[in-house]
């Protein structure tokens, strides 16, 4: 690589005396590809500017109170994002509570436990789960999962609803759809993403470290707990945040199942809304400028939240890559 770069430098230099002028194909090629690469990177900035521009109307009318107002009333022209921000966070938290332990178990199984012949098929199955489009998760969730879940909900209401304090989260009519159902389906959706990253980073743990722990008499679990996890901690966290970024922005599956209510209910069994679901539901119906601008301002909020989460995730993942490169 070094040598070839030196060679390009020579080629790009001024032609030696006496040489005829040549069409500067190389510098042009370099500038063209470089310009396009910059353009791709600038897309993020363009998204930010475009969404601020489109949401400006709403942000100017409502100011910072847009973030903390819970009313969303297209008829009276009152718009506030609070219900949707909270809905997005709650459904994503439920999703992560399910996805993190399950992904960890799957990654552990693939990287440490599975016999060689089973490793490939299970890995492929997890990757296929990631390839299934979100609209199919949504359809399955609404038409197949929700009716079955509705039969369990009376049980949840009876048992979990009786817990003092926390019980209020689990009381409600057995509708099948709602915040909890959306969170569960969302969790199933992000499992493959987190599991794939965890598996990859577990596999880069140096064999020498694991073998020394085994030689000292550790059980497999102790190797995982005291060698693999400490070594991969930052990257595992990065993978979790990458999954969170996905859960926060997921649209179709949530739109099908969350119930689309513009009110905030205390119970997780009640319908709710997320930022993405309200945009998907109402965008084409938004007739007034303020209405549309408010929806685009919601999009801006979603973009900013996911951007922060994704940058954080990527930085954590990069740290393991660098660390793995510098270690012997």
């Amino acid at each position, binding site marked *: 690589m070094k*040598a070839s770069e030196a*060679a*390009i430098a020579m*080629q790009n230099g001024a032609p030696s005396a006496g040489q005829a002028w040549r069409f500067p*194909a*190389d510098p*042009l090629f*370099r500038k*063209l*590809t*470089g310009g*396009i*690469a910059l*353009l*791709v*990177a600038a897309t*993020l900035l*363009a*998204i930010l500017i*475009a*969404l601020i521009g*489109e949401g400006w109307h709403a942000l100017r009318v409502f100011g910072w109170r847009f973030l903390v107002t819970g009313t969303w009333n297209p008829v009276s022209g009152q718009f506030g994002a609070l219900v949707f921000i909270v809905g997005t966070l709650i459904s994503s938290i439920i999703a992560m509570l399910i996805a993190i332990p*399950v992904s*960890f*178990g799957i990654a*552990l*199984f*693939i990287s440490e436990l599975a016999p060689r012949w089973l490793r490939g098929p299970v890995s492929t*199955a*997890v990757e*296929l*789960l990631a*390839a*299934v*489009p979100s*609209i*199919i998760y*949504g*359809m399955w969730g*609404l038409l*197949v999962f929700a009716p079955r879940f509705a039969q369990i909900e009376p049980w949840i209401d009876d048992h979990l609803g009786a817990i003092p304090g926390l019980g209020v989260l689990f009381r409600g009519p057995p509708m099948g759809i709602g915040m909890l159902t959306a969170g569960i389906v969302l969790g199933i959706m992000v*499992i493959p993403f987190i599991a794939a990253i965890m598996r990859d980073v577990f596999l880069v743990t140096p064999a020498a470290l694991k073998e020394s722990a085994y030689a000292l008499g550790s059980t*497999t679990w102790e190797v*995982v707990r005291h060698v693999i996890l400490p070594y991969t901690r930052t990257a595992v966290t990065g993978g979790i945040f990458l999954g969170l*970024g*996905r859960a926060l*922005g997921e*649209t*179709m599956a949530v739109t*099908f199942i969350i119930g689309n209510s513009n009110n905030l209910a205390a119970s997780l069994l009640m319908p709710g809304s997320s930022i993405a679901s309200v*945009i*998907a539901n109402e965008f*084409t119906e938004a007739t007034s400028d303020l209405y549309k601008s408010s929806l685009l301002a919601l*999009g801006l909020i*979603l973009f900013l939240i*996911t*951007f922060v989460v994704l940058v954080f*995730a*990527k930085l954590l993942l*990069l740290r393991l890559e660098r660390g793995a490169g510098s270690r012997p």
Partner: protein
Amino acid sequence: MIPLRSRRRAINAFNLTMAVLTTVFGVFWLVWILWTTLSHGIGALHLSLFTQDTPPPGGEGGGLRNAFVGSLILLALAVAIGTPIGVLAGTWLAEFAARRRLGSVIRFLNDILLSAPSIVIGLFTYAIVVDPGGHFSAFAGGVALALILIPVVVRTTDEMLRLVPGALREAAIALGTPYWKLVMRITWKAAASGILTGVLLGIARISGETAPLLFTALNNQFWSTDLARPIANLPVVIFQFAMSPYDNWQKMAWAGAFEAMAFILLLSVFSRLLLRRGIHRS
């Protein structure tokens, strides 16, 4: 008091059993979802799906012809716009910016773009294409899908070109090959199957995308191939039909979901095989 040794063993056995159970749990959903789509989808499959257009609300019969064709047009548009941009940007990252700071910054931003919510990409496309143009159009849908495809292609092109051995490049330069020719004739060729895999995986990703199309290509109940007008497409039709109370529409949504799923899974499996073969050879 349980001896320490057997307690450690018990913890080990318990946790490892949990790992196996969670894997079964994960695979269980995949099987359930695949099974549902298959059983509902096969039942609703009919030749008229490919020969007739979408029926009106509550109507009997009909098919998904306009949606299939619309989706293919949108995919073709996205590939036509996204592939050259993605491949060229990836080429710069791998060939000219391998060790430069700007290269890693762009790589980082591209990764963020890769994971950005597709609904945000849809709103962005609405802001730059639909809003100034004044109406929803198939073209806008193609742009939205291209924006989702590009980061996938950039990333795989970059990774695949960096796998090409440096000795190949040095040999070509030693023979006096200009760099642009070296890239086009040698490194692109050596990484061709990898780059193609990236494009195929990208297509698999965008062919199920629904959210960005809601604000761009919209939907069209009728047959249309006009790029300047709203166009029917499979994901939005599935969304509309599945949410509806009409039995005929719901059946058709399952058939469409089955088609989409089969297409995407076959594409994913095929591109993985292609990738494995490509790596074997090099």
